[in-house]
């Protein structure tokens, strides 16, 4: 049948029809323009498109996110953790009478490399850290990987009473040091949902009791869900691999009846973003704001009502000269 259609008699007619249809009608313009566009598409699809804004800020709640800040940008962090909700109305106005504070600065050395420093009122600890974005999620790579390392020094007077109730004595400054490192792996699954896992290693030079190991391995998981363009729900959980010999009710039968005091940290939060600021409000059973404290030395539990209200405020400044000229 096809060959009858395209026999000598029909061929010129069919040909002319097609020539008219594709070569002479208004369709030609559209087709030609779409052709040009597809040529552009071909060229542009060669370059990867990097995923942006996996998280709103460089911190999820207590811990870090894979986000770093841009080159020559400065972040100022003000974090507060109020007292425990269960600390009483008269005694402590449900915790609002007091707060632990951390002030921090972060600076972007490059678009992928950040350095930060901070000072926590909890155990009067100074911390330094650095984060580097090793791998960036794009239309070709499924995940972002960031490596983080930090160092802290506890400047409490020797023989102070810790949150756990133990007495801590330091005989030299080296004993005051602690170190932590993390590998943060995240994927922005959809515009709204991003999830992150963060295996963590912490080393504390001196611990209060020989039954507590100096090293701690912890596995963190967290994520965010955007409920609107500016409001995000977030959650973060650190599960520490502690070799508890006696697992009964989590009480550790250590040396001399010492019971292992530290718990896993679970935090729930809401982020609100307004232009240059990110406000993070949260409920958490951890009062520390650096890895050594909220992962390694957290004494609160949700069940007993040791829940702390807290907030972080991040303010970003662009120190780029070009930016100063346009944004007076």
């Amino acid at each position: 049948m096809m060959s009858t259609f395209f026999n000598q008699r029909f061929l010129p007619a069919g040909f002319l029809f097609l020539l008219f249809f594709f070569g002479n009608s208004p369709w030609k313009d559209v087709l030609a323009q779409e052709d040009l566009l597809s040529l552009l598409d071909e060229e542009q699809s060669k370059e990867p498109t990097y995923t942006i804004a996996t998280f709103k800020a460089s911190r999820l709640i207590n811990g870090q996110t894979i986000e770093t800040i841009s080159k020559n940008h400065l972040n100022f962090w003000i974090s507060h953790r109020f007292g425990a909700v269960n600390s009483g109305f008269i005694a402590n106005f449900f915790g609002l009478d007091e707060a632990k504070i951390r002030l921090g600065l972060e600076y972007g050395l490059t678009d992928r490399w950040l350095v930060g420093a901070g000072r926590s009122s909890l155990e009067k600890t100074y911390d330094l850290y650095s984060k580097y974005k090793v791998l960036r999620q794009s239309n070709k790579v499924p995940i972002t990987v960031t490596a983080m390392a930090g160092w802290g020094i506890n400047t409490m007077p020797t023989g102070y009473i810790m949150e756990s109730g133990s007495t801590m004595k330091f005989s030299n400054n080296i004993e005051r040091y602690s170190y932590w490192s993390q590998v943060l792996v995240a994927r922005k699954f959809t515009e709204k949902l991003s999830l992150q896992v963060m295996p963590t290693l912490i080393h504390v030079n001196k611990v209060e009791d020989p039954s507590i190991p100096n090293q701690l391995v912890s596995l963190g998981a967290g994520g965010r869900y955007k409920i609107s363009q500016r409001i995000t729900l977030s959650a973060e959980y650190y599960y520490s691999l502690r070799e508890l010999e006696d697992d009964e009710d989590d009480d550790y039968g250590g040396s001399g009846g010492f019971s292992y005091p530290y718990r896993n940290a679970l935090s729930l939060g809401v982020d609100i973003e307004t232009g240059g600021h990110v406000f993070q409000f949260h409920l958490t059973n951890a009062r520390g704001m650096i890895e050594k404290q909220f992962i390694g030395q957290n004494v609160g539990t949700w069940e007993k009502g040791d829940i702390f209200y807290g907030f972080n405020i991040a303010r970003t400044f662009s120190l780029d000269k070009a930016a100063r000229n346009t944004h007076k």
Partner: protein
Amino acid sequence: MKKLILFFFTFFLLGAGLSFGQNLYRTSVGEVSFFSKTPALDIEAINKKAGAILNADSRDLAIQMKITDFQFPNKLMQEHFNENYLESERFPTGKFVGKIKEAIDFSKPDTYSVTAAGNLTIHGVTKPVTVKGSIIATATELLVSFDFTVRTEDFKIKVPTLVFNKIAEVIEVSGKLNLVK
């Protein structure tokens, strides 16, 4: 059967002729910038990776760029632009597809004022637009420059009341495309 093969062969050539062997001028490093001016804040961003192709015979013109390639001096602003305003993950490109109205022979070196009519797509919304510009033609290059304004409202770009005084309702867009044969 021979005729059938001949037919398809001819058809293929005709079809291929639409995109190849034409008088095409192109660039992949065109510059498109925009400017938003309010008493509270001036915002400027530039995209130096705009792709453009002009068919000098039919005067068809296509310009396309990735929204994420717009560079802001303030990167936080850039992130908000992509995440909150232009939603670049959902709508990754901005493009113009149209035709230059004036019948100009670009092989003659001169400066021409031109008008391009076509469809502008931003934020997933397509609108017919007419853009005025100029083309400086040399033996091997066409230097296209243009400027026009865009109303954020027309392209469903929502500006929350909180930052309303910081982002202009009418954005000035300008571009420079150095098209090479």
